[in-house]
């Protein structure tokens, strides 16, 4: 006879305030096979686990039900606890009486009644549980980092330094990402390129790092420890092995009308181009859409001038298939398009620019070689207005509800930069709040106000219009003095909201990693597992997980790298034993299961089985590969005969729960 122990947790006051735990204990004690029931303040604590151990020994319990927080929280804890005292961990069931009971119901009687029902369902299920043993799967000792910005570079370097092979896939022709576009970085004002370029060099030259630039992830299959990834290496039309990066081709290219992506459209580039001067790899790429040779068949100048003879117009995209034990998503961010924010005049005036465009305008390698001039006139502005929260903290539905986090600091940085280099320019910042939590951040902001006399006005900008003199008129409110303002400016900088990079959702779907409503990757736990995706083997670094600045990005990348290294250091992983299995004597071999399996875990085999008449016969049956199976259960429903079942979530187990709840 089964002996089930039921352990009801108070979770301090979290459960016990709304659920009468004593009544739950009393109710479950009357259920047949429940040999022991008790409540305790914190079941997950050492004391609670000791209580379980002792009860198992004293009452010879063989199955355990814990009524506590979500199994997503402590199922592993209680499974370990059971294992320590000789009970198979899969003979443990959790009744979720916190997240799904005490926290959602205020009425004590209702909450107690629901807790009892949930306990009964768990007890009903645990009766049908069978001991399960995890299998093992090997770990491919190579990591993939998707995205070659500072997050990806840092993660790759840390993984490579720990001694593991790591590949970076970057869809742009060069690594560097957004950080390569920045001029200076807060709060120390060191030059972005000066601190990034050495890291780019390290990554490009590291023996353990392989770069796939101008490449995109095309397909991902497999699972933690052994992902199979198809990478599309787009045709550069340049033989990267032979190219010396001399750049003659980019100078001689007659097609010069394409706006430079790297310069955010503030400059044009040739059809064959190197995105920026410190680009790595320093190998040009032909933009076939704008190349005369590809469009008209005439030209071919780059090929003629190339001293290394490495231009190859026939180059094709290449699909590379590689296996990885772990994957880091580091896909970074884009700026929110401003088409829904007509009031700021971004579409109307070239002198209304985004903060990122400003970075290019002040960068010595940028379109103006670092001279701050109005794009419309080429003249130095006399007054600059910076607008915060453009599209951030937006509840109108046009923008993003979240705070983009980095803007307050770069506003101060950019204001200070202007005032320092051009003391004659007047700079005003309109803000809703100034948020400067961070080491030396508030001091930095105060310096902008106190030492550099940047005007900070709490208020919102309502409209930016071109005025008759070719300048801009800014209508705004000053909330502190409750005044409407009409100001003149020569340049307006919009601190535009960040958003996850285009294509992040497509990637998340390939990785089966979850995303939030804003398309940021979701972390496995917002506090305790912030660099892991809920999907095993997928780790997160940088802006793709949420807005963050460079130091935070670098820290997260390092943390993600440690998690990757921790995974790659293992030779084998314990696999989830809750996998499908086929009852061969009733399997008809129709293979509907095989067709719905996303992992190719089911194959047809001709086997000798004993049929229902007790006769040996040879026939086709479905066989599940227990390592490949991830336990979704699609096959169990495709099978009309219920020959296919799922361990840990069997038909009988689920029906027992259904019956207990209805």
């Amino acid at each position, binding site marked *: 006879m089964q002996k089930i122990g039921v352990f009801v947790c108070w979770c301090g006051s979290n459960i016990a305030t709304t659920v009468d735990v004593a009544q739950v204990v009393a109710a479950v004690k009357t259920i047949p096979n429940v040999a022991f029931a008790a409540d305790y303040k914190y079941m997950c604590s050492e004391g609670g686990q000791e209580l379980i151990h002792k009860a198992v020994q004293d009452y010879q319990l063989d199955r355990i039900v814990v009524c506590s927080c979500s199994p997503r929280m402590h199922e592993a804890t209680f499974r370990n606890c059971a294992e320590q005292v000789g009970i198979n961990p899969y003979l443990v069931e959790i009744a979720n009486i916190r997240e799904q009971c005490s926290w959602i119901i205020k009425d004590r009687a209702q909450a107690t009644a629901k807790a009892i029902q949930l306990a009964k369902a768990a007890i009903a299920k645990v009766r049908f549980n069978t001991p399960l043993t995890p299998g093992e799967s090997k770990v491919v000792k190579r990591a993939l980092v998707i995205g070659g910005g500072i997050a990806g570079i840092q993660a790759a370097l840390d993984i490579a330094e720990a001694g593991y092979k790591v590949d970076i896939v970057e869809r742009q022709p060069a690594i560097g990402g957004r950080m390569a576009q920045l001029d200076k970085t807060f709060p120390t004002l060191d030059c972005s390129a000066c601190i990034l370029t050495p890291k780019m060099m390290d990554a490009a030259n590291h023996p353990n790092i392989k770069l796939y630039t101008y490449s995109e992830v095309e397909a991902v299959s497999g699972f933690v420890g052994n992902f199979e990834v198809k990478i599309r290496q787009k045709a550069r039309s340049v033989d990267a092995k032979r190219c010396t990066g001399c750049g003659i081709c980019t100078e001689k290219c007659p097609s010069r009308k394409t706006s430079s992506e790297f310069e955010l459209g503030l400059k044009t580039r040739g059809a064959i181009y190197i995105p920026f001067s410190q680009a790595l790899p320093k190998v040009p790429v032909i933009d076939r859409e704008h190349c005369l040779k590809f469009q008209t068949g005439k030209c071919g100048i780059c090929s003629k001038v190339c001293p290394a003879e490495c231009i190859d117009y026939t180059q094709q995209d290449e699909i590379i298939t590689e296996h990885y034990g772990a994957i880091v998503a580091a896909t970074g961010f884009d700026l929110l398009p401003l088409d829904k924010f007509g009031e700021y005049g971004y579409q109307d005036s070239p002198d209304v620019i985004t903060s990122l465009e400003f970075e290019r305008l002040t960068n010595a390698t940028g379109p103006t070689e670092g001279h701050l001039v109005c794009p419309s006139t080429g003249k130095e502005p006399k007054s600059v207005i910076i607008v915060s929260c453009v599209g951030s903290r937006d509840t109108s539905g046009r923008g993003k509800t979240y705070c983009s986090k980095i803007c307050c600091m770069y506003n101060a940085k950019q204001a200070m930069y202007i005032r320092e280099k051009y003391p004659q320019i007047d700079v005003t910042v309109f803000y809703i709040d100034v948020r400067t939590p961070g080491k030396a951040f508030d001091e930095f902001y105060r310096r902008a106000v106190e030492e550099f006399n940047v005007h900070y006005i709490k208020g919102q900008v309502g409209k930016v219009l071109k005025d008759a003199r070719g300048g801009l008129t800014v209508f705004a409110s000053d909330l502190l003095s409750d005044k409407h303002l009409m100001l003149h400016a020569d340049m307006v900088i919009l601190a535009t909201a960040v958003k996850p990079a285009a294509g992040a959702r497509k990637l998340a779907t390939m990785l089966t990693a979850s995303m939030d409503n804003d398309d940021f990757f979701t972390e496995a736990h917002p506090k305790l597992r912030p660099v892991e995706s809920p999907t095993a083997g997928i780790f997160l670094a940088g802006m793709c997980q949420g807005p963050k600045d460079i130091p935070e990005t670098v820290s997260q990348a390092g943390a993600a790298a440690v998690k990757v290294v921790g995974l790659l250091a293992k030779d084998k992983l314990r696999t989830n034993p809750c996998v499908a299995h086929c009852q061969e*004597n*009733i*399997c*008809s*071999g*129709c*293979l*509907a299961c095989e*067709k*719905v399996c996303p992992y190719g875990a089911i194959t*047809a085999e001709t086997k000798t089985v004993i*049929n*229902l008449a007790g006769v040996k*016969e040879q*026939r*086709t049956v479905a066989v599940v590969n227990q390592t490949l199976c991830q336990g979704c259960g699609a096959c169990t429903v*495709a099978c*009309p*005969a*219920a*020959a296919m079942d799922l361990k840990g979530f069997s*038909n*009988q187990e*689920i*029906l027992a729960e259904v019956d207990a709840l209805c």
Partner: protein
Amino acid sequence: MQKIAALMRQKAQELLSSGQVQQVAAWRKGQLAYDNAPAVFTSPEACADLVYDEFCPANLSKYLLAATKKKLKTAVFLKPCDTYGVNQLLKDNRVQREYVYAIGTPCQGMLDIKKIRAHGLKGITRITVSEGVVQVETVYGTQNLPQRDVLLDKCLQCKGNAYMIADTEIGEKLATPEPRGDAFAAVKRIEALPPEERFKFWQQELSKCIRCNACRDICPACSCEQCIFDNPAAPVAGKAFADPVEENMFHLIRAYHVAGRCVGCGECARVCPQGVKLGLLNLKFMKDINTFYGPYQAGSDATTPAPQVTFTQGDVEPSAAGQKGRS
């Protein structure tokens, strides 16, 4: 038809005597003029009893299940509509192609003796069909009936005279009955009823069921090694009255399980001793599959995956299906 029957006997004898096949599935004369029964012939001599006329409605494809199990190469006479069943069984791996010798057999529509009797005819001795006229000879005299009036229901939705699978064909193809309008007309009539009446209709219809399982036995889509209703560990209760799963659930689940496999042969409704309109449930699923996922005909080949094992990213949401036709 007599000519065809003679060719069939000849073919069966040839195949058996040459050892090309070990058995032949066909029809045998019954006691009356209209109760031919499926039969398996194993010797050339026995084939003398082989018959074929307008009273051979049974789809023989399911006999191939046992043939495969016994590893006996079997010749099977298949009317055009029966060929769909064979393909479905091949697709479901229930029948191995190597054991099948499919013989396309012409058909001009099978007759429904109940409909003939409904004309007040008794003492029937012989029934023949020629040019759309059914000549019924009785001990009291002879009467002619229009063929269309006495065709089996399933023949009124004939899928045409093409064989979906055939290793050889007997004689020339015959003109099959023109299908009667919209195949889903009956489904649409029920869909148009208010929900209460739909519920009443099905309750009455399905409570006629006596759970004889004839529908399940004849169905070329119902080919599981062990039916879920016979498996106590399965997520439904047993086939008997032991648990409160009874007729309605049985038919709902059966229809659900054969959806996408059902070839629409109409045999389930034909063999039902209680006259339950079982075909309607299957037709409803076919109609839904066609509407939601594009035209699909189970059994038209042995490879196209069923709609339930495929998907598209833009598939319709369940809520849309639940609301359709709601009053």
